[in-house]
Each structure stands twice: as C-alpha cells, then as structure tokens.
C-alpha cells in the first residue's frame, strides 16, 4: 500500500505541492526558522537543482518534435500556438490592467508569472478529464509555448545582478564542446552534464541570466536513440539511449529537487497578500482562459479547424486546466523579482491558482465534457459531488488523478498500459507485447528477448491507475545465436534503408522484429502500404525460415 502510494505521488509529480504545503505551514507557524532555512537552500535548489528539471522538460520537448512526436507536424502546432498567444495576451492584459488600476506599476514585470502554465498540473487534469483525446496534445503544446515565451522574458536578471565579462566565450565553449561530443557519438549524457553543464551554468551566471537554464541549450545535442543501428542492439546490462538514460537516472532526484523547490519557494506568510496576489489570480483564472478561447475563436473564424473530436466545451475545460501556474509560476516569480514583499505577493498568488483544478472539473461536469459526457446522470452527479468535496478538502493536484481513477474505462487503461510498456527502457524493437483489458483485468501477451523483462512489464502494468489485476502471458524467446544474427541483420538493413530513416530516429522505432527459431514476425506501424511491402521484402531477403507481416498502416491525422 505504502509503495503504491509512493509510486502514485512520484508518477503524478505531487512532491512539489507537498513541499509547498510543508513550507506554507512552517512559514506561518515559525517564520524566522523557515525563512532562514529556505534562504540557505535557495541557491542550490533554485540555481542548480532546477537546471535538471528544466533539462528534463527540454528533453521531452525535443523528443516530441521528432517524427511521430506530438509536436512534429506543424498542423498540430498551429492552433495551440494561437491559443498560447491568446493565453499570454489575456493573462498579461488582465494582470497589467489590474496593477495599473491599483497604481502599483512596480508589479508590472510579474505578468509572466500569471501567464505561466504548470505542465504537470495541466497534463494530469486534462488527462483525467479527456483520456485518449486530442485535448491532451493541444493542452501540452499550448502550455509549452506559453512557458517558452515567458521564460524568454524572465531569463535575464541583469537589472538586479552584477554582469561580468566572459559569459559569451564560456557559452561558446560549452556549445562547441557539446557539438564535439555529439560528433564523437558520446553515448551517455554524463560528459554533457559534467563538462558542458558547468561551463554553460557559469556563462549564464556571468551574463546575468538565470543559470537554471544552463542545460536547456545542451539537451538538443544529446544523441538520440535511433541515430545508429548499434543502439538497436538489446543490452541487458543497461540502456544506452542517452535521453532515456537521463530520464531514467534523474527522474527520482528531480522529484527531490521539485519537493525542495516547492519547499523553498512556496513558503509565504498568509498575511503577505497584496495587489500582486489578486492581479495574478484574476489573470490566471480569468484572463488566461478567456484569452485562449478568444484567440482560438479568431483562428477558427480565420479558417483553422479544431482537432477532430475536440469541441468548444472541451476548449473551455482545457483553458481552465491551464490556470495553475505552480512550478513555472514560482520559477518565473523568482526570476522576475528578488526577495521582497512583491515576490511574496506573487508567490501567494501562484500557490492559490491551484483552485483552477476544481474549476476545470466543475466546468467539465457542467458542460458534460470528456468523461462527464453521456448518461448515468444520477451516478455522475453523486460522483461529481464527491470529487468536488475531495478536491476542496485535499487539494487540487491530489483531486485530479483521484477523480480520474474512479471513471477509467478499459480502453483508457489499455492505452495507459501500452504507454508504460513503450516507455520501459529495456523494451526494444525485438520485443512485442499485446495489451488487453477486461473490467480492469489486464492481460499481457507477446514475446520478449530476456526473462527479466516479463516480470518488469507485469509490475509496470500493475502500477497503472485502474488496473485490478494482471495476467502476464508474455513468453521469453529462446536463446539462439542464429536468431540474434537474424534480428540484427534485418534491423540493420531495414532501418538503414532511407525509406525508414524517419522511423529510425524516433525514440521508440515503430517497426518491431520478433524472431523465434528462425521465424520472423514484423509488427508495429508504418506510414504507407509501400513501407509495409518494402519491410517485408527486406525481411524475406534474410535467412529467415518464414516471414509473417503483421505491420499496420497508419495515416497521420
């Protein structure tokens, strides 16, 4: 039970709000000791530790821009980008208008705090309300775009830190070294982190920019998994995929950093409210959603289209789900203002934007969006009231996934399990796993190359929300040098073919080659019938005894 709870907390990035809650309590009960402790931790957490978190976010974005990623196609970008512009404009207008009306123009620089969108907060709320729905990529693209815009605005702190010469040279050295490492095909992220990272950090520090951004320009240099056929080789001793390894190694340390970040920055005196607090709340909860809806409406009127199955009521719910500014809001606040009452006002406002979560759920319930659409009115009413009460009593971030857990369908669970399987670092193109769900009971079938993967995949599936039980029917493929030669030979030729380069550079290459006693089965997804036929031809040209082509053709929507 404890393990599951811990896993739930880690998987849903809840350590940050927990750290914030601890800080709020401590700051208001024993402020002197809290602020002394927080001040001691502020530099290592805000200036160094957060560099890892921002690197992880950058890595996610870079990977999503690869073929088949959520951000690869410009068609998927356009409308959310317009909505992001609306979010920034709407929140900035309300925020600046409020502080100007209050004649406290010293707060003007805080508008990026109101525009910020907390990625984890938005992700889990939208996912809870709209499982397997185009609302999710829409919301994520929107959130990323707004945060990139706001980051660019607050990155420079030259007005309140000393600027020293030499920063540009150091940054050039950091990027040059990263390019060399990339050229030399460094397979691990460590040299990038340990050699280029400090150079970049020091360069930003000298130039008066926020040094927590130090790893952001370096992440794109990380070699991505499918660049070399060597990377397709199944390695039981450890993953050699640099980005995946980065995530694998740093996921838990980053959670600790986020806890400390919440602890260091969210501790504010409740008496510290002021104009900045109210302006930020109004901008995040009203200006931002209105800006999103208005900008999207204009874009649709100009000829763009909402994604399929994405209705106007869904847009309203997504817009409200972006109102939480937590992590990025606190980060931008510390970038925009140094220690002082203005920063405290904004921090308090950032923490209070958590009420956007119950608002998003309430809007979904009222508008019958996502999971709340359809019949069973009485049951849904009862559940919604229960969810609302839980949200108010616990906290917005805790309520979102809890609510999601109550209404997950078998289809949603299957999608989540499949996603977990795909993200398992030892799951390679030589493995194939099929997922079926019946009333919460997950059946895993398929074949993998190593016995430890069977157990690991079963455990992964068991951790997914809504899973009641797991029937693990995955088989281990027999050990055979001949089969290994066939696997690597087909993979080398298939992914070396220019026709499949787009697939080779993906984090999870979509064509799987399952070999058992000389019999080859091709599974997965290709973009066209031509690709399907060519893949089969390549497989047949090997020494395989037989080839079964189970490749499916998927057309990009």
């Amino acid at each position, binding site marked *: 039970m404890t393990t599951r709870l811990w896993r739930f907390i880690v998987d849903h990035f809840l350590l940050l709000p927990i750290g914030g809650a601890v800080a709020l309590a401590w700051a208001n009960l024993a402020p*002197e000791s809290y602020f002394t402790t927080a001040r001691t931790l502020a530099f290592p957490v805000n200036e160094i530790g957060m560099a890892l978190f921002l690197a992880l976010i950058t890595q996610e974005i870079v990977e999503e821009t690869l073929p088949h990623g959520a951000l690869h196609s410009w068609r998927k970008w356009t409308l959310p980008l317009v909505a992001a512009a609306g979010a920034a404009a709407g929140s900035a207008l309300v925020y600046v208008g409020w502080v100007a009306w209050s*004649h406290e123009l*010293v707060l003007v620089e805080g508008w990026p705090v109101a525009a910020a969108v907390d990625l984890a907060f938005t992700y889990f709320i939208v996912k809870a309300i709209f499982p397997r729905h185009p609302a999710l990529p829409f919301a994520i693209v929107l959130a990323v775009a707004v945060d990139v815009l706001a980051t660019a605005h607050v990155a420079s702190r030259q007005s309140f830190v000393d600027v020293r010469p030499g920063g540009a040279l150091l940054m050039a050295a950091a990027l040059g070294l990263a390019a060399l490492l990339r050229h030399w095909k460094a397979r691990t992220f460590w040299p990038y982190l340990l050699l280029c990272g400090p150079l970049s950090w020091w360069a930003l520090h000298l130039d008066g920019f926020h040094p927590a951004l130090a790893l952001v320009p370096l992440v794109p240099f990380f070699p991505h998994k499918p660049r070399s056929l060597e990377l397709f080789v199944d390695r039981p001793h450890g993953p050699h995929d640099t980005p995946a390894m980065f995530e694998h190694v740093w996921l838990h340390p980053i959670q600790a950093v986020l806890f400390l970040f919440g602890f260091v920055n969210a501790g504010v005196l409740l008496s510290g409210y002021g104009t900045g607090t109210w302006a930020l709340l109004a901008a995040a909860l009203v200006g931002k959603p209105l800006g999103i809806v208005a900008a999207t409406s204009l874009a649709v009127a100009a000829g763009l289209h909402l994604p399929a199955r994405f209705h106007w009521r869904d847009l309203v719910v997504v817009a409200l789900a972006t109102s939480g500014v937590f992590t990025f809001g606190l980060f931008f606040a510390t970038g925009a*203002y140094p*220690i002082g*009452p*203005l920063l*405290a006002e904004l921090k308090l406002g950032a923490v209070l934007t958590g009420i956007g979560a119950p608002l998003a759920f309430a809007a979904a319930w009222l508008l019958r969006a996502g999971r709340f659409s359809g019949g069973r009115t009485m049951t849904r009413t009862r559940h919604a009231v229960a969810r609302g009460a839980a949200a108010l009593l616990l906290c917005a971030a805790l309520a979102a996934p809890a609510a999601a857990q109550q209404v997950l369908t078998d289809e949603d669970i299957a999608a989540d399990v499949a996603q977990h399987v795909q993200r398992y670092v030892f799951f390679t193109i030589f493995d194939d796993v099929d997922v079926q769900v019946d009333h919460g009971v997950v059946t895993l079938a398929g074949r993998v190359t190593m016995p430890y993967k069977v157990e690991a995949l079963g455990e992964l599936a068991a951790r997914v929300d809504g899973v009641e039980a797991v029937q693990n029917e995955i088989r281990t493929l027999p050990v055979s040098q001949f089969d290994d030669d066939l696997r690597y030979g087909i993979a080398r030729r298939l992914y070396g073919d220019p026709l499949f380069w787009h697939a080779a550079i993906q984090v999870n290459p979509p064509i799987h080659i399952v070999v058992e006693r000389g019999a080859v089965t091709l599974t997965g997804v290709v973009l066209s019938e031509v690709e399907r036929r060519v893949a089969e031809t390549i497989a047949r040209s090997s020494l395989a005894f037989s080839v079964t082509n189970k490749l499916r053709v998927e057309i990009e929507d």
Partner: protein
Amino acid sequence: MRHLTCLVLVLLLAAVAPAGQEPLRFAVVGDAGTGGRPQFEIAQQMAAARAASPFDFVLLLGDNMYGRQEPQDFVDKFERPYAALLGGGVRFFAALGNHDKPDNRLYAGFNMKGERYYTFARGPVRFVILDTNQLDPKQLGWADDTLARATERWKVVSFHHPLYSNGGRHGSNVELRVVLEPLLVRHGVNVVFSGHEHIYERLVPQKGITYFVAGSGGQLRKGDLRRSATTAAGFDEDRSFLLVEIAGDEMSFRAIARTGRTVDAGVIGRRPST
C-alpha cells in the same frame, strides 16, 4: 559696554565651536502622498515644528505618492502640501514604497539621483536609503559595502517595509529581516525608519537597533496597533510624523500628531561601534 563685551564673547565662542557639536535635526514621515487634508495638516505641523527646531531635510519612507502619478499629481500630492517646507529650502530624501512608480526616483523633488537606493551624509550621520520592494543581490552588496566604508559616528537606515512591526495588517516582514538584519547588526546601524504600516510605533531595541514605524503621515489604519512585548510606544489614533535631533552620542526624538500633540518622545544612546 558690558553688554557689547558679552555679545562679542558669545559670537567668538560660536565661531570657534567645532561644527560637529551642532545638533543635526531632521523630520521623518511615511505613507504620506495622498494629497488629502490630513497630509496638508501634518505638513503644517512639520512647518510649525521647524519654526521651533529648525531642520533642513526630511526622510520620506515610501508610498510618497498614492493613486495616479502624473506630473500634476507631484504638484497636488507633494509640492502643494509641503510648499512651506520646500519654500524654506528643506530637501526631501525619499525611499520607494510599493505604491510608488519605479520612475519616481527620477523626480528631482525626491533627491534620489535616479537611483532606487542611495546614500548621503550629514554631519556625524551616514544615511542609507534602501528599496525593499526588490532587495536584490546587487543592492545587498552595495549596502554591505556602503555601511562597511561609512566612517560617521551614526548610521541610520530607512526603507519602506518594516523588519519589526506590531501592525495588524502586515506585521513584521520576516523574510526581509532574515536577509537584512545580519547586515545591519554587523555594521553597527543605530536606527532604522520604516513605513508601510499606517500607524506609529517605536519598538524595543532589537539586537541593539532601534526600529521606528512611521507610516501614518497621510494614511491611517486606526486602531491597528497590536501591542506586544516588543512595542516600546505606539500611536494609532491619528496621523503623525517624527522629529529627530542628533547631538553627540544621543539621538532625541518626538512623534507629533496632527493636532500638534507629542505622542512619544525619548532619547537613544549611540551603540558602541562594532
């Protein structure tokens, strides 16, 4: 003839007396810039006090301008209320409050030389004016350096947000205190003036420093003082300002209300230099 001799002697004594013996007088007022009648009445009391105890400068503790801050507002909320003082050559040295536009530092009447934080010396006193809206590392480094190099016998610091206060609305700003207090103690600062709370309060010396909250020069939050063990004296019934005189190792002060009544008075001894 005897009278003439006495007069000559007095004049000679005055001429040869060291300049450092002259008491330094100044007034302190905070949260004043409303342009309302109470601000005018406090200004009249300041002018009356000057007639009795001449002073040639005033410390403004922030929120020197409320509401709109266009050129005409500088006339309505500063130049007209303090016309008698300004006409008498009194200079005002301002700190920025949360209601002040950052650009107000450029206004000549505030004598800020375009800076958010600055310093000046008068006789035996080094004054350091800080901007606590944004207490950034650059400012902290500057304050540390300025106070370290100050050779004057007295060190007086003023800024808007109080490190110690028993005001009900805001109270002590502990986050600022954690950052600033070690610096003030280390450099032997004697007195700190702040505003923000719209009351008058003098606190029991904290770590050797006497803190004044004088944020009722125009605004007032009546009855907002929550007296505690750290309150040495307070007044939250009406507007007020401070009149300060430093002579030798003693600083005498009087808090004067809008009616002209003295609501607090006393003498503070100079801390030994650290």
